[in-house]
């Protein structure tokens, strides 16, 4: 190795001038480097000729009959002897007329497919000099010309905000390719055109490869290539690279452009006259100081756009007094970027309007038409109410008979346990028969009802309708005065109150945040809805859907009324605007819905097997001991305390107690009722009057949230006072409205 370095005729490949010939004598580097270079044909003894070495960018070397681009850093590690070629190298290396073509495009537009088809096996993969970004270079001969293709990294724009964008724009600016082929996806043309809007500003002719026209046609999108060509002012070649269609036309158009037969006059995005004046001023200030190869007009535009890389570059090349003026101009017109980038979108919209024929019926078109009604403040709200009613109706119509049957089976099973365990102590028999089966078993009989409920919700979510429901909810909140960032956590509350309370962190104002936390427990979470779904048909078998619908609607109205009060006093001057990206409507996928149902039921079963089971056992112990009769048990002692409150709503202490246990988890209400009454389907309907049943359901809907939510409220407010205030508010509302419903019901029903 040392002897090579000491050879006075041995120099690195980097030092060879274009046109020079030499023999490779030695390569320096690790095994990986040597293997890679050998694969490219760089082995000791091989003759080479330098085609291009411009002091910037990769070197182009003719080796073993192919042109290969290698990085400058790599070239420093290849040592050659330029003076006396071996005899075998004395044959002249012939070079055809050659053109360098850069392939530009966004990721996923089929650029790699186009590159592979154009270059076949004549391609080499390396890295861009000094970068970790992959560089692919390949060539082909067409029409008597050697075409060298450089596959630029996939980029969405040329704003130099990423390594890939910097490489792409630097290559075009510094290496001066003879042609840039912009590959775009015809099916998503507007997304692809932003890059083209930037490419036409650079000093290189652009040819548009309109790829994936087959996919666009399949989607009903028809693009008038000739119209697009006229609108853009550059040649457009429709193609379907995946089917090897349009390649010849692309190459022949490229050749015609290289021959000068086809000239281009690109239509460029134009900016507002006000900013045009600033641009001219900026141009005048920087003229004569812009380093080569950056064009002055383009540099001025990029400065005004706030391009950090160019700002630093110009700052280093301008005299301080001029930079001061430039800096002030840029500072005063910081928002010019809105006009410059906005002009590009306007340009895109113009091109699309001119050349794209959208299908009559598309998913997007269908979504727009449906949303005209489904997100309409009044029509949409009525539809949402009807949809909610249908969900409850379906749940009860299909689920209730199955639940009733399962409940009977639990009774039969409990009797069987009593028979099988007849020799065991009474309390053990009752622990299993009344405690576990009566409580937990009763909860589990409601699985079919929950499955249907979750299926309906999953169906609505998967079609994209639930997002509209969220959107409409904001409309209502806006009408009632509550808007701003409060609505976001409130929406979350429909899933679970815990993340909703956590979600209030997005509200900057502490006061607004605390008051939003107060409102959240009023939102019926899925667990609360599930309990209501279970209880309503027990008391109102013939009008369950209507009653459940009324309960949910009543809850929401109460929420909106409180929101109105909060708005009056707290949010009067707050205005926060949002955009929501609503998904397109689509046919629901049964697998997705199945997964949604499964996840929710699994969550319910996990809860049933842990929290609910533990609470069930504790409640059973208190209901069994010391006498073995619930009416004289420890539980009844607690119940007696609740009895006077319950009387205000016509409720026996047993029902009050069932609701109190929902503090651990909402579903415990069912478990407690199961332990106390056994088969609740038979006992509950006869236990209380209709007004009392309504009061019971209202009380359940508005009762204090579960312990997890309360703990989160404490954690987020960091205040026992606010936590107690929240508990007090919910307790007061649930009791107050429960009593009101009972008393009004009694008045109406005599």
């Amino acid at each position, binding site marked *: 190795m040392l002897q090579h370095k000491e050879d006075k005729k041995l120099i690195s490949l980097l030092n060879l001038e274009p046109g020079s010939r030499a023999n490779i004598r030695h390569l320096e580097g690790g095994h990986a480097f040597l293997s890679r270079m050998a694969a490219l044909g760089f082995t000791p003894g091989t003759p080479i000729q330098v085609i291009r070495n411009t002091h910037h960018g990769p070197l182009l070397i003719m080796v073993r009959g192919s042109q290969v681009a290698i990085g400058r850093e790599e070239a420093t590690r290849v040592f050659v002897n330029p003076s006396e070629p071996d005899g075998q190298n004395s044959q002249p290396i012939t070079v055809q007329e050659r053109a360098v073509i850069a392939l530009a495009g966004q990721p996923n537009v089929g650029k790699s497919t186009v590159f592979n088809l154009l270059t076949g096996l004549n391609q080499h993969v390396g890295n861009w000099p000094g970068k970790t970004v992959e560089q692919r270079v390949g060539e082909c001969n067409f029409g008597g010309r050697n075409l060298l293709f450089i596959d630029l990294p996939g980029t969405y724009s040329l704003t130099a905000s990423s390594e890939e964008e910097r490489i792409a724009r630097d290559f075009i600016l510094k290496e001066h390719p003879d042609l840039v082929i912009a590959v775009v996806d015809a099916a998503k043309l*507007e997304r692809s055109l932003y890059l083209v809007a930037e490419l036409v500003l650079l000093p290189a002719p652009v040819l548009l490869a309109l790829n994936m026209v087959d996919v666009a046609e399949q989607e009903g999108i028809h693009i008038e290539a000739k119209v697009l060509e006229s609108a853009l002012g550059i040649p457009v070649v429709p193609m379907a690279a995946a089917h090897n269609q349009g390649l010849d036309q692309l190459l022949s158009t490229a050749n015609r452009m290289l021959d000068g037969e086809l000239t281009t006059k690109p239509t460029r995005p134009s900016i507002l006259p006000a900013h045009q004046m600033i641009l001219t001023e900026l141009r005048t200030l920087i003229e004569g100081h812009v380093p080569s190869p950056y064009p002055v007009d383009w540099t001025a535009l990029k400065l005004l756009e706030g391009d950090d890389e160019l700002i630093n570059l110009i700052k280093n090349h301008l005299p301080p007094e001029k930079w001061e003026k430039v800096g002030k101009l840029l500072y005063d017109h910081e*928002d010019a970027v809105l006009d410059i980038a906005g002009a590009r979108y306007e340009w895109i919209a113009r091109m699309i309007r001119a050349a794209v024929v959208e299908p009559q019926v598309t998913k997007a078109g269908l979504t727009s038409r449906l949303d005209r009604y489904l997100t309409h403040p009044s029509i949409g709200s009525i539809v949402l109410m009807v949809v909610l009613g249908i969900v409850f109706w379906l749940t009860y119509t299909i689920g209730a008979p199955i639940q009733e049957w399962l409940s009977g089976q639990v009774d039969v099973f409990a009797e069987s346990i009593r028979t099988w365990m007849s020799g065991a102590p009474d309390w053990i028999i009752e622990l299993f028969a009344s405690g576990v089966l009566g409580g937990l078993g009763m909860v589990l009989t409601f699985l079919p009802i929950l499955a249907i409920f979750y299926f309906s919700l999953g169906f609505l979510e998967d079609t994209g309708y639930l997002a509209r429901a969220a959107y409409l909810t904001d409309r209502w909140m806006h009408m009632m005065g509550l808007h701003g960032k409060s609505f976001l956590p409130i929406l979350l509350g429909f899933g679970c109150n815990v993340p909703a309370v956590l*979600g209030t962190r997005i509200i900057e104002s502490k006061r607004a945040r605390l008051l939003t936390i107060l409102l959240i427990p009023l939102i019926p979470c899925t667990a609360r809805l599930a309990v209501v779904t279970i209880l309503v048909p027990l008391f109102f078998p013939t009008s369950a859907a209507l009653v459940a619908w009324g309960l949910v609607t009543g809850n929401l109205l109460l929420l909106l009324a409180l929101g109105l009060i909060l708005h009056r006093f707290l949010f009067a001057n707050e205005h926060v*605007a949002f955009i929501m*990206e609503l998904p397109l409507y689509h046919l629901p996928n049964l697998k997705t819905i199945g997964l949604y149902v499964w996840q929710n039921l699994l969550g319910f079963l996990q809860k049933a097997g842990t929290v609910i089971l533990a609470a069930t056992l504790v409640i059973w112990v208190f209901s069994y001991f010391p006498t073995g009769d619930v009416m004289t048990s420890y539980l009844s002692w607690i119940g007696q305390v609740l009895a006077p409150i319950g009387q205000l709503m016509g409720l026996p202490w047993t029902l009050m107690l069932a609701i109190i246990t929902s503090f651990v988890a909402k579903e415990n209400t069912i478990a407690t009722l199961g332990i106390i009454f056994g088969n609740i389907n038979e006992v509950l309907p006869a236990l209380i009057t209709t007004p009392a049943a309504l009061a019971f359901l209202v009380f359940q809907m508005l009762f204090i949230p579960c312990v997890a939510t309360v703990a989160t409220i404490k954690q987020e407010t960091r205040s026992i006072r606010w936590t107690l205030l929240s508990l007090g508010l919910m307790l007061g509302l649930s009791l107050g409205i429960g009593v009101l419903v009972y008393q009004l019901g009694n008045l109406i029903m005599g």
Partner: protein
Amino acid sequence: MLTELLRIIYGGNLRTQHDIAQLMGISPALVSMMANQLVHQGYLEEINPGCSCTDELPQKDEGPCSDCPTKKVCGFDPTHLWTITEKGKRAISI
């Protein structure tokens, strides 16, 4: 066009990209592209209403929500939601 979009966003409380597309006579896809550009430039911010309250939009099975005990019952759907920033308000001179 970007200034117009900012004005439209600020003019309402909650709008969808479909509403805005209709108002501007362009496609919803172009509205989303422009909204992303405005986020990049600091005129709009993407809001994460989820449990994590981080700057990034969480996914239920990855990121900060992955350990959340309530993720299975959480109603949070990572729908894109943007709001106007102070810089955005200044740009339209509010």
